[in-house]
């Protein structure tokens, strides 16, 4: 069975070329064959997947088709899944079985998808290499000595290795786009508020956004429609209309765009990344896009602002993991204070502790103005830069990451170097903008990603441009084992 994309799978199901059960069992076998090595999954939900596949087959036999009937999918372990372990990559939640489904999960379940399992990730989504996971690092299928990126490393690696046709991820500072880039697949982070955050374990609430991994931009278009929309359970979710993204990509006759290239995204690039990027720009020029050099003056401050805002919010968001109601509880504690201290010391890994400490400091009396408030001001300036840019251009392009994937262990003892792998991605989170990474070439046989940033709620034009690019190129159809 060699279906290349979500759309091919949905077509095959619809045409009854394959049953949901056959397909699911095929993907479960691929996981069995490959995942001991790749470590993409924390939990494989074989039994419930086969049960759901049978339900879908029964429905199909009665003529009931849902938008994504029979589509296997891998869910990042940050999304709460009812009755299934939801660990968030942490020892803290190693024993946590969620009593409810996240809205994203509910929507995908209702649309007919079949969950293959829960994917590995950096602990509480804090990391850019998937090495902070309590469940061990995920490997990059293009070269298993290398990281897949993070924090959604399991989801990205699984799609790249074709052991799942698609997967969900979350992106707080680049956690979808960076691993998509390093794994050579498509990763879409929608506009903040486009997709409900309910049931998605919070890292930094004002930055977190759920999104998708696929191999083809059109697949992302199909899936995005199903997970988007206002959720009464999430006050920050938007009620902006959800268009039919796929239809827009295929049938809308818009074919040219004015594309902005910020100096800040290209000036420090190494030769190979620079070449891949400008080769991609040539492809777009060839199909009629206009290129414009722009400035995003304050984007250089993005990582610094991000490293204040995200830890600050995380320090508060992670307070609920106190060993009282759920999650890890230390056996050593003999007083309330010890219960907190020991449970949290034992339950959280090093990076999570580092961020909680940084965030607690940034919010402390006397430092709030100097750090948190200042970071919020920088955030406004960055948003303003983008706003100005979008008055001149339709989309903004740059490389997703400064370089290809790095080796497992290479940056683990250098947090600053690790944080800088988000340098091109954090600004869009700070501004709440949608962005997508698609494959644009290779360096040393490791993939490189092209980042397309759009205006608020303009996912359709991001997807369309990606689709136009992918019609001209074949980076996205290359597989690790070819």
């Amino acid at each position, binding site marked *: 069975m060699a279906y290349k994309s979500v759309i091919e799978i949905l077509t095959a199901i619809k045409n009854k070329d394959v049953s949901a059960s056959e397909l699911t069992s095929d993907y479960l076998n691929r996981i069995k064959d490959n995942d001991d090595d790749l470590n993409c999954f924390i939990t494989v939900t074989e039994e419930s997947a086969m049960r759901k596949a049978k339900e879908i087959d029964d429905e199909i036999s009665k003529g009931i088709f849902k938008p994504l009937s029979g589509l296997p999918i891998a869910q990042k372990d940050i*999304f*709460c899944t009812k009755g299934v372990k*939801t660990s*968030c990559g942490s020892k803290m*939640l190693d024993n*946590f079985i*969620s*009593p*409810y489904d*996240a809205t994203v999960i509910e929507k995908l379940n209702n649309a007919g998808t079949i969950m293959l399992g829960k994917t590995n990730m950096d602990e509480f989504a804090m990391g850019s290499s998937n090495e902070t996971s309590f469940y061990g690092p995920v490997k990059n299928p293009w070269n298993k000595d290398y990281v897949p990126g993070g924090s959604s490393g399991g989801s990205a690696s699984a799609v790249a290795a074709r052991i799942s046709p698609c997967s969900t991820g979350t992106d707080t500072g680049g956690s979808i786009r960076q691993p998509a880039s390093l794994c050579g697949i498509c990763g879409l982070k929608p506009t903040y508020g486009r997709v409900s*955050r*309910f*049931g*998605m*374990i*919070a890292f*930094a*609430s*004002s930055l977190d956004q759920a999104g998708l991994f696929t191999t083809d931009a059109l697949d992302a278009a199909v899936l995005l429609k199903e997970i988007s929309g206002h959720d*009464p*359970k*999430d*006050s*920050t979710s938007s009620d902006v209309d959800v268009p039919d993204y796929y239809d827009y990509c295929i049938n809308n006759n818009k074919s040219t765009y004015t594309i902005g290239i910020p100096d800040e995204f290209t000036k420090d690039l190494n030769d190979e990344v620079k070449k891949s990027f400008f080769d991609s720009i040539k492809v777009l020029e060839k199909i009629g896009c206009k290129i414009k050099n722009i400035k995003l003056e304050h984007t250089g401050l993005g990582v610094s602002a991000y490293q204040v805002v995200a830890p*600050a*919010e995380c*320090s*508060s968001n*992670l*307070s*609920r*993991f*106190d060993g*009282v*109601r*759920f999650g890890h509880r230390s056996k050593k504690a003999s007083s*309330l204070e010890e219960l*907190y201290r020991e449970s949290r010391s034992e339950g959280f890994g090093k990076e999570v502790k580092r961020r909680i400490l940084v965030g*607690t400091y940034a*919010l*402390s*009396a006397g430092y*709030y103005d100097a750090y*948190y408030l200042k970071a919020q001001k920088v955030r406004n300036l960055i948003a303003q830069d983008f706003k100005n840019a979008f008055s001149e251009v339709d989309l903004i392009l740059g490389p997703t990451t400064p370089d290809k994937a790095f080796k497992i262990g290479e940056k683990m003892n250098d947090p600053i170097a690790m944080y800088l792998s988000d340098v091109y991605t954090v600004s869009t989170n700070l501004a709440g903008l949608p962005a997508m990474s698609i494959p644009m070439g290779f360096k040393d046989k490791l993939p490189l990603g092209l980042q397309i940033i759009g205006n608020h709620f303009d996912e359709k034009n991001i997807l369309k441009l990606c689709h136009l690019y992918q019609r001209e190129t074949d980076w996205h159809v290359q597989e690790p084992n070819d």
Partner: protein
Amino acid sequence: MTNMWETVIGLEIHVQLATNSKLFSSSSTNFGAEQNTQASVIDLAMPGVLPVLNKKAVEMAIMFGLSVDAKIAEKSIFARKNYFYPDLPKGYQISQYELPVVYDGKLSINVDGNEKVIGITRAHLEEDAGKSIHDLYDGQSAIDLNRAGTPLIEIVSEPDMRSAGEAVAYLKKIHSIVRCLGISDGNMEEGSFRCDANISLRKPGDKFGIRAEIKNINSFKFVESAINYEVDRQQEILESGGSVNQETRLYDPKKNETRPMRSKEEANDYRYFPDPDLLPVSISDDEISRIKQFLPELPDTKKERFINEYSIKIDDAEILSSSSELSDYFEQSIKTATSEIQLLANFILSEVIGLCNKNNIDISQAKVKPEDVAKLNNYIGDGKISMKQAKEILSEAWISSVPVDQIIASNNIEQISDPDLLTDVAKKLLEMHPKEVQDYRNGKDKLMGFFVGQIMKETQGKANPKVLNQVLIKLLKGV
């Protein structure tokens, strides 16, 4: 020495709002349910859950703001107040910090006939914590999260009060307003209405002294005793040359004393920051106008109306307007009243309230209908029954729930007000007591009581005392 010190008091009142569901979840807020049965995944702060604001609570806060002449913030913001405690599931309380929904209000109070205006700095919305129960299991603490997330408004006053009496008057006024608005049941025993008192002393004209905060006082009486205790304590410290510690204290009603809870140094750094899970609350002028329209008549307005409309005493008007249950009862009785309304007010305030207090129930649950109380007063006014009889009938009606007219009819307890009838009775009595009549005529005025008593006995207390008096004087003095 006492006059050297001026007491400065500011109050923070926590009022539980009478919404059906919690501030950020759809769980019920009913009091007294089985432990942890009113706690959803949101109240439990399960990973991934998000708060959604209960608009009804915002509306109630606005109602309060409008009732104390306050400004309503066009935009207010929820913030997180971070601290660890087992009954605080999220590890932070969602409250309002920099931009509260209500600010800059005022309220006039009346203490011993003196009007005084107390400033209201702000009133903000916040969620309540759960309850820690330490005496249920040996060596273990239990947590009940039914209350977690219940909406509160915290009403912060300016340090404008100068005595325990003023503080209690202010507290009672706020209590009557929130009850009148229907935004809280004001039940102090169940913790729906509780207050923290900030107390300091200074020499008049000096800047404010160092204050101590007494936490969680839940009765008017305790507020008064706690403040008085604290004033004495601080005065003693200051007069012996010491200085007051800035600290949080607890009031122990059993021992009538305050005890230190935590000092300023031990105070938490709450690391307030805007809650990114909630959007700023925007309130339009239209919204405010809409809410204004259905505000009920407030105690002060009602008091003025009672004075003007019914010509009753100011103090009585104050009490009768202080709760809507009492004012409803009063106004309901007026519909049937033909006698003077002041007398009706007196009767309700002394007799009906007396019975309510004795039975520990609210006036709304009084066993005698306001119409019947009005009738009793009408009959007193008409001379049909005496005050004493009225009280007896009221007591009987209270116990038996029988309408007063029926009691009067079946017991034949109407008053004898016919002068001719009473003259006949009196004549007979005077004939039987010639000596006493002689003594009376010789100036022994006290004997009037004897004659009245004897006739009352004869008539089983039905003689109208006023008429009887006139009859006797006429017979005895021949006037």
